[in-house]
Each structure stands twice: as C-alpha cells, then as structure tokens.
C-alpha cells in the first residue's frame, strides 16, 4: 500500500469533510464488498425505521376512525418492522466497526513499515514520543471518523432524503418547508467546520507533545531526580496539558453554538409544518394522522441532524490526525532495503575521496584509505571529530556527499542495503537492548538461534561467565533498556549480538568504553582468534586498544591520517605534533 496520491489530495481539499474518507478508502480496498453491505444495510435499516412513524400515524388514524382491529394489525407491523430494522442495524454496527478496525489495522501496518524504513536523519528531526502519538492516537482519531461515517453518515443522509420523500408523499407543502431548512443546515455546517480546523491541528500537536514529554521524563528519570528537577518537569508537562485543555474548550464553545443550532433549525421547520398542517386540517376538517406522522418524522431526524454536527467535529479531528500521519507515510525519507542487485560483499574496504557535509559544515574532507581483509584497525581522534560519521557511512546509515566506498571493489551503493548490512555489523556508542531474555538479545540479528552459537558469541564478548552466573542464565530477562545490566555488561551483550552474525566487517564505535581495559583486550584477542577473516575497525580513545591494532588512523578536523606506533601515546593525548 502506498501513500495518498496527489490526485486524491487535490480532490480532498475541495471536499473538505470527506477528505479523511478518501484517505481511508485507500486502506479499505480489499474491504469494498463489506463496505457495500454496510451501506445497503444502513439504507434498509433506515427505511424500516422510518416506516415506524408511518405505521404509528396509521394506527392513530385507525383509532380515530374507531377501527380497533386495524390498530392490532399496525402494532404487529410496527413490531415486525422494528425487528427487521434492529437485525439489519446489527449488520451496520458490527460491519462499520469491522471496517474502521480494518482501516486502523492496515494504516498502522503501513505506518510501521514506513517507520522502520526511515533514514536515520528522520529520527534526528522527529521525537519518539511524538511519533508514538502519530501512530496511535492520530490513527485512532481518523478511525473514529471512519466508524461514525460508515455507521452514521450514510444513514443520516438517507434519512434526510427519505424524510423528504415521505413528507412529499404526505403533503408536498410539508416537503417544501423541509427543503428550505436544508441549505441553512449546510451553511451552518460549513462555518462550523472552518472555525474549528486550526484548533484541532493544535490539539493533535499538543497531544504529541504530551507523549514526547512523558517519554523524555520516563527515560531520563534519573537525570530528573539526580538534579531534583521534578518541579521544573511538572511545570513543563502542566504547560502542555494546559494548552491542550484550552484548545479543547475553544472547540467546545464552537460546538455549543453551531452544533446546537442545527436541531434548532429542524425544529423551526417542524413548527412550521405543525402550524401550516394544523391550520389546513382545521380548514379542511381532515384526519390528523398525516400531520402526526409528519411531525414525528422531524423528531426522528432531529438527533441524526445534530449528529451531523458531531461528524464534522470528528472529521476535523481526523483531518488533523491524518496530516500528521502523512509525515510518516511520505516516502522521501524511506530507505529501500531490497532495491538493486543483491551483490555479496567481501574483501578489502576502500574509501576513495569521501566527503561528508552536515548543515553546511564539512565533517569529512576527501577521506581515502584502504583496509585489508582481516585487519584490525584502530580509529582515534578528538571528540566530535567525525569518527562516528565516518564509520556510519560504511553500512550506509548516511550517504557520503562525494567519493566512493567499496568493499572488495564493489561500490556499497551497488548492492541492496539488506545485503550490505548483512556483511557489515556496527556496534554503536549508544546501546539499545530489546526487552526479552539475554538469549533473545544475542540472537537478535541472526537467523541462528542455536544455543551453541549464542554461547560461542557470548564467550568471545567475555560475557558468558557473567551470564552463566545468573540464576536464569541465558533466559534472564533484561528490562526494556537493559536496565538491570551495568553499562559494560550491556556493551558486551551488544558485541556478542554483532559477533553471532559473523560479519565480514565488524565496527566497534567506542563500544567498549564502559568495559575495563583488561576485559577489552581479552575481547579483542578472542575476536581475532575466532573471527580471523573479519575486518575489525574500532573507534577508541585508549592507548592499549591502539597498541593492539594492526594499524591506527586518527581523524582530526575532518582529515584522516595514519599513525605510527611510536606516536600512540601522543595520538591519544592529542598533543600537537606539527
């Protein structure tokens, strides 16, 4: 399923209220026949419900004419008609729920699949709390509209048409009075819709902000506590809930005015019919049955009409939600994992005149180097010199602005991302363990969840002894963010997670910074021993790690330089050697 096409959006702009509906239809392609059943059922249910006041009118006429047998006849008819309408109503309610849930299901699926394919830069701009609200509550807002549209909009519109037809059959003048009310209703509806638009947009934004602040506060709870910033945080959150509240009240005021105007217009028309009908009945001394039926029809449509007003509210809420969901559905920041020729990559790693820019600043300038298969290379340099950027270019988490990166002579851009990342494993600075057991975490990236392989990887990462000392061993649950493990333990689990995939190139981005130097060296030795064909690049500030490496590069001010072993102590200390 793809994002909305330009055409439908153009059309949507013009149709306003129905815009979320057009958007929704894209996610209901395979549910079309159910949608048709629901629509037909809703028409039938409405038709039958409208027969009730007619039969009541007929029954009253029979009573007036003292034909009591007919009263029983009409009573039974009323019962039958109501039962049918009740039964069909079930199809409408359940069916529309089915449609709206299918819509939400499909949309959520689509949103998720876009989300996991977004480039890194997308997550640098968006916040996870806000993305969370886009993928849950914004979808819910639009689902609510779809639900109410499927179950209520169509019946309401049919109801109005039927009411008109019935009135026409009872008395054309009644119908005439009714038709005057319709444009007034539409006019009120349009004004109502326009006035609340911006407010819903803000409501949805504040809701996202609320999620965002919660997320930050929960994840950063130690910092908040550590600096006793609780009051500050409460004030910040309260500011957001306050703005959210204010917008809601503004919408409520609009709703109070415009939404309630709608039934008032209907009742004015009913009064008109009562006056006109009553007057002419007295003049012609005819039976009151038709008049009772006509006024009854109005009392029946008064609620649906006011519901139309609420539907406008739902629609605006949905619209604001959808425009936020679109940020995720837009494809310009998506990666295509399977696009291209799946060429296997193996061999020497080469950078040829690679440059990278971020926000006008040149982070990497014309970098060229070559690393042979199986080499162990150290990369060092000042903080924020661009070391992480450089290694992130290899698995194409970012793309270089110019130059070429090749593995075994093949440009990394000439294979699929899936293939590339299968042969390059990067352990980032920031470790993220998933919730689950240690076993699940280690086998996370591997199709191989054999215990042997897991133990093998854990042993290389020097974490197996620790894991085995735990009561549940490899089945120990680690919290959402691996909360019960120390920083160094977490880093080692992450290293095991990379090792088990037996990558061609293993990149450790300061991934042993919380591991003591002794253990670090043991890990390096194990890697060298067990993964002899694997090229290793480690970013480090430790002299001991540099000494271990076959070759060492330093990156400073965007320029890469190979270092001689005699200079390591100066290199790590960053002393001026010019």
């Amino acid at each position: 399923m793809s994002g909305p096409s330009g055409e439908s959006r153009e059309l949507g702009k013009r149709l306003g209220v129905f815009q979320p509906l057009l958007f929704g239809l894209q996610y209901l392609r395979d549910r079309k026949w159910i949608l048709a059943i629901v629509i037909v059922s809703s028409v039938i249910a409405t038709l039958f419900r409208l027969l009730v006041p007619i039969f009541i009118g007929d029954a009253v006429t029979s009573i007036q004419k003292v034909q009591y047998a007919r009263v029983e006849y009409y009573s039974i008819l009323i019962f039958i008609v109501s039962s049918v309408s009740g039964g069909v109503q079930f199809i409408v309610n359940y069916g529309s729920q089915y449609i709206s849930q299918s819509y939400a299901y499909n949309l959520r699926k689509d949103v998720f699949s876009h989300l996991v394919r977004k480039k890194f830069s997308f997550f640098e701009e968006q916040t996870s709390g806000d993305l969370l609200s886009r993928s849950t509550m914004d979808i819910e807002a639009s689902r609510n509209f779809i639900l109410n549209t499927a179950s209520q909009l169509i019946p309401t519109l049919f109801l109005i048409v039927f009411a008109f037809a019935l009135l026409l059959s009872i008395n054309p003048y009644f119908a005439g009075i009714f038709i005057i009310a319709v444009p007034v209703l539409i006019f009120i509806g349009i004004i109502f819709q326009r006035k609340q638009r911006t407010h819903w947009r803000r409501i949805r934004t504040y809701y996202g902000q609320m999620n965002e602040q919660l997320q930050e506060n929960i994840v950063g709870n130690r910092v908040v506590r550590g600096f006793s910033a609780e009051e500050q945080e409460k004030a910040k959150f309260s500011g957001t809930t306050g703005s959210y509240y204010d917008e809601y009240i503004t919408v409520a005021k609009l709703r109070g005015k415009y939404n309630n105007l709608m039934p008032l217009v209907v009742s004015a028309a009913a009064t008109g019919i009562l006056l006109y009908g009553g007057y002419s009945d007295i003049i012609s001394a005819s039976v009151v049955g038709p008049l009772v039926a006509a006024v009854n029809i109005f009392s029946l449509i008064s609620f649906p009409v006011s519901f139309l007003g609420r539907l406008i509210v739902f629609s605006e809420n949905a619209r604001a939600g959808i425009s936020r969901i679109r940020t995720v559905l837009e494809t310009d920041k998506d990666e295509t994992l399977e696009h291209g020729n799946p060429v296997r990559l193996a061999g020497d790693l080469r950078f040829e005149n690679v440059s990278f820019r971020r926000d006008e600043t040149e982070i990497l300038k014309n970098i060229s180097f070559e690393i042979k298969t199986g080499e162990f290379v150290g990369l060092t340099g000042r903080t924020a010199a661009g070391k992480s950027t450089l290694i992130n270019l290899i698995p194409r988490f970012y793309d270089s602005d110019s130059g070429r990166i090749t593995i075994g002579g093949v440009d990394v851009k000439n294979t699929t991302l899936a293939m590339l990342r299968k042969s390059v494993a990067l352990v980032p600075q920031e470790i993220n363990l998933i919730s689950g057991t240690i076993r699940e975490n280690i086998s996370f990236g591997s199709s191989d969840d054999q215990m042997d392989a897991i133990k093998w990887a854990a042993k290389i990462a020097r974490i197996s002894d620790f894991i085995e000392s735990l009561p549940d061993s490899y089945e120990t649950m680690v919290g959402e963010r691996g909360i019960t493990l120390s920083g160094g333990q977490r880093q080692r689990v992450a290293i095991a997670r990379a090792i088990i995939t037996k990558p061609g190139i293993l990149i450790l981005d300061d991934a042993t910074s919380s591991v003591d130097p002794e253990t670090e060296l043991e890990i390096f030795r194990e890697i060298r021993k067990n993964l002899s064909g694997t090229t290793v690049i480690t970013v480090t500030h430790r002299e001991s790690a540099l000494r271990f490496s076959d070759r060492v590069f330093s990156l400073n001010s965007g320029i890469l330089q190979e270092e001689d072993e005699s200079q390591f102590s100066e290199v790590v200390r960053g002393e001026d050697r010019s």
Partner: protein
Amino acid sequence: MPNEYEEQEEKYIPMQRGSKAFRRLLGDIFSMKRESARLIIAVLSTAIAATLYPLSLAFAINGVISGNFDTLYTYAGIFFLLYVVQFFSNRERTVSSTVLAQSVIRSLREKAFENLQYVPVTFFGKVKTGYLISRITNDGETLSEFLTFQLPQVVSGIATVIVSISIMFYYDFNLTLYALIVIPVLMGFTFSLQGKVRRNYLRTRRAIAAITGNLSENINAIRTIKSFNVEKRMEERFDDLNKTNFMANMKASLLASLYGSTIRIIEAVGIAIVLIAGAFQLKAGLASVGILVAFVVYVQEFFEPVVQLSQLYNSYQSSMVGVARIYGIIDFPRQSSWENATQHADFRNGIELRDVSFSYGEDEALRNINVRIRKGEKIGIVGHTGAGKTTMSNLIMKFYSPTEGEILLDGKNINEVNTGEYRRLIAPVLQEPFMFKGSVYDNILFSNPDATKEQIDELAKRFSLGEIFSHLPQGLMTNIGEMGRNLSEGQRQAISILRAFVRNPEILIMDEPTSQIDPYSEKLIIESLSDFLKDKTLILITHRFSMVTLVDKIIVLNEGNIVEQGGFKDLLDSDGVFSHLYSIQYGESNGN
C-alpha cells in the same frame, strides 16, 4: 508472550474495580462544584424541555381536532419555544461538560505525571515506557468521549425518564403501567452482560498499550534494528500485536452491536403494547387520541436514552478500565523516603556507607561495604565492569536503598533525610548522559534554571569544552534533537559535565564522566577541575587512570567487595588489582 508482560504489569500496578474507580471519578468531578452545578442545571433544563414538547404537540393536535386555532397557535409556539430553550441549555451543557471532562483528564494526567517523579527508580525497570505513556495519554483519552457526551446524556436520560413517567402516570395510570412492562426485561438483559463487557474492554486497552509499547521500543531501538537488518521480523511482531488489537476490538464490538439491536426490538414491543392497550382504553372511553399520541412519543423518547445507555454502557466499561489504569499510576506508592523523610540535609562532616549490601534480584551486587567520605575529600572508585561501582553511586544518589546496612549523612540515615534537600547537595555526571530535546544551553540550564548563558560560556571556556561544540552549526544554541541524537557521545558527556558543574554542588558524583571524550580534552578538563573541586567532595568512578590524580583515596571494587583501598602510590606499589589494571592501560603493549 506479550500477555505475560501485561499480566505482570497489572500485578505490579494494582487496578481498582470499575465501580470503585467510577465512584472516585465522580468524586473528582463533583469537587468542581461550580461547573458541576452548571452542567446539572443545563442538563435538567434540556431534559424538562424535551419531556414537555410532546405534551405541547399533543395539545396542539387536540386543538386541530377540536378545530381551535388559538390552541393550535399557542401550543405550536410553546413547541418551538421549548426547542429554543433546549438550544441554550444544550449550548451550556456542551461547554460545561467539556470543561469538566477536560479538567478531570488534565488533573488525572498531571497527578500521574507527578507521581511518576516520586515512584522508586526500580519502577521504571519493571514497567515499559510505551505502556506507561499509553496509560497516561491513550487511557486518559477514553474518558473524553464518556465524560463529554455519554455521562451528561445519561443524567438527562434519567431526568427525561423520570419526568416522562410522572407525566404519563398523571394522565393515564393504567396505560403507563403497560408502557413500563418491558423495563424489567431490559434491565435484566443489561446486567447479565456486565462482566463480559468489562473483560472485553480490558482486553482492548491492553492491546493498544501493547502496540504503544512495541512502537516505543522499536523507535528507540531503530539503529539496532537497522544495523541488524531485522525490519521484516519487527514488522511481523508488530503485525501480531496489531492483529490482536483488531480481534479484541471486534470481539468487544460483537457484544455491543448485539446489545444495541436487541434494545431496538424491545423498544418496538413497548410501542406495540402501548398502541394496543391504548386502543382498548380509548374504546372504554378512558383516554383521548391526543394523549395516546403523546404516549407513543413518550415511549420513543423514553427509549432514546435507554438506547443511548447501551452505547454509554460500553463506553462506561471502556473508560472505567482506562481510568482505573491511570489511578494505578497515581496510587503507586512513592519511594518511601519521599513521604516521611523529614530530617534536613546538613552536610558538615561527611557521608558514610555502613555495612551496606545491595542486590537487584538474587545476586548481591554489593557486599558489606564500609566507606567513610569526609567533607571535601575526593575518592575514586575503580574496578572491573560489573564490580558494583555504578550501584554504589546509585545508592549514594538515593536511587535505590541498601538491602542491608545504611548510608549516613552527618550521622543521619539518608532514608530519613528529605530527598529533595539531599539531592540538592549533589550533582551527578551519570554514565549514560540523558539529553532532552532543545539546545545545548537548554540541556545545561536544566540543572540550574537560574544560571545564565554567560555563566555557561564561561564554564565551557574554563574547562576547554567549547571546542567540542565548535562544529555545531549554531554553537551552543544548536538544537540537539531528541535524546541528543544529533550529537556524538563525547559531546553528550561534555554537556553532562557542564550540567553538573553549573549547579556548583557540594558533592560531585561522576560515573565514567569522560569515557568517550578524547584524552586531550580530558586532560584540559582535569587541569581545571582541581581548582573547581576545592572544598567540594568528589566521588569519581572511572576506568581511566588519567583522572585518578584528582583523588585522595582510591577504593577498588571486585565482584561487589572492596578489595583494596588507599592512596594512588600505595596501591600502585602493592601489586594488586589496581596496579594490574593500571599496567594494562599504561604498561607495555599486550597486543599480541
């Protein structure tokens, strides 16, 4: 697998029963006296106007039958006037019900948020972030529809029913009894479904929380997911939860839809009974045609709130499950020392760890630790990973309480010392620096909102940290993205350090503060630190011996025990764990 977690969570955060939560919620609502009064008046006016209009219709029709124009005009006029009254009362009702609903939701969210600031730190290890967010935002939202639309409707419904029945009894006692025959059937039907409906909605709330939880985890782990190429697998997992959510909602909807349809049929039975009975009454000369018409309208009017009640009932169940989940957070016991710690935090002599042991679960992370830190003393804690260093700082920060033994501040157990005051003495540089969305400045000012940008610039200059940020497009004004994603780990550490320094604390706790800062920058920081630290107490956890020059005493931890302590030189000479660690970092190459 997902269900296991949800059950654990519900066990960990106990939930009140629906009816109890509802009573508590009503208490919250009625505490807003003015708004509740406005709402009740508005609702009652609407209800009264709504019950009177069939009557004016009846009189108008009677006027038509009797050929009386004046009666027709008068009652038609009243008929319309009643709708005008309804317009104004409904308008008032819309606004006041939203004010009530949104105020309640807002205060629930704020209370939950507030309590989150004081629950024990262990809470966050047990409950997943996304689930927590879902409780506070999504579950809160279920109340909106219920409180804004359904609750006032039911109040007005009940009022309508009472007024309708009174009028009906007044005009025709027997016919009214006939009209009410179906009520017991209806009530029995409704109550028989109660338990099922509630279970259904609990399932839907859990399902959406699981979706939120999964999303939150995936978004936060996006780099790992991409690194390991597991997008497809994550999609499959998400799809399972998405399907579960779909099924849970469909199941809830099946019952709700069946209920709605059955109500409609019961309504028709009611009308038919009134018509037939009415015909007999009329035959016996006991009722007028106009009254019969009014009765039919009343029965319909009467069923309208009942039908709405069916919707309300579903919404009620769903909201009560939601609100009970928020109350669960609000009621979660705070870290014990928040509430009853009344002692002031005076710091003149020192901090002492006395026989302190601690375990996160089964294994002891720290065993029998005895350390005395005099005011102004600088101590270093070193040891292998997992030796318990960070645990020790967590205990001193009062994030956890020792399982055995006590930590004393000037001889007072810190559990009895006011936590806010106590933590104000301390500034931590945590192992994993957490960044908030905003600029570099915002993140530093976080710890001390009174500080100025000039002070920060001055601090950055003093510790030579300015250069670390020099590549940023707008310097310290640069927006660093959520969790500082636009920065390198080293830059984040620099912020974390400045954040602690700008607070000018009595006690500085630094946990691997420079592990990802290059040695050159580190050297500059250390040079300026000794001056900054004068008169301050320092607790430094580190692997890097470059910083050890700052401390007076070193404590070496190994597997939760103190194995060595003393001055730098003594330890180096004593050929123990410390000198071994040191030689690896600075000694000869152990490379091959």
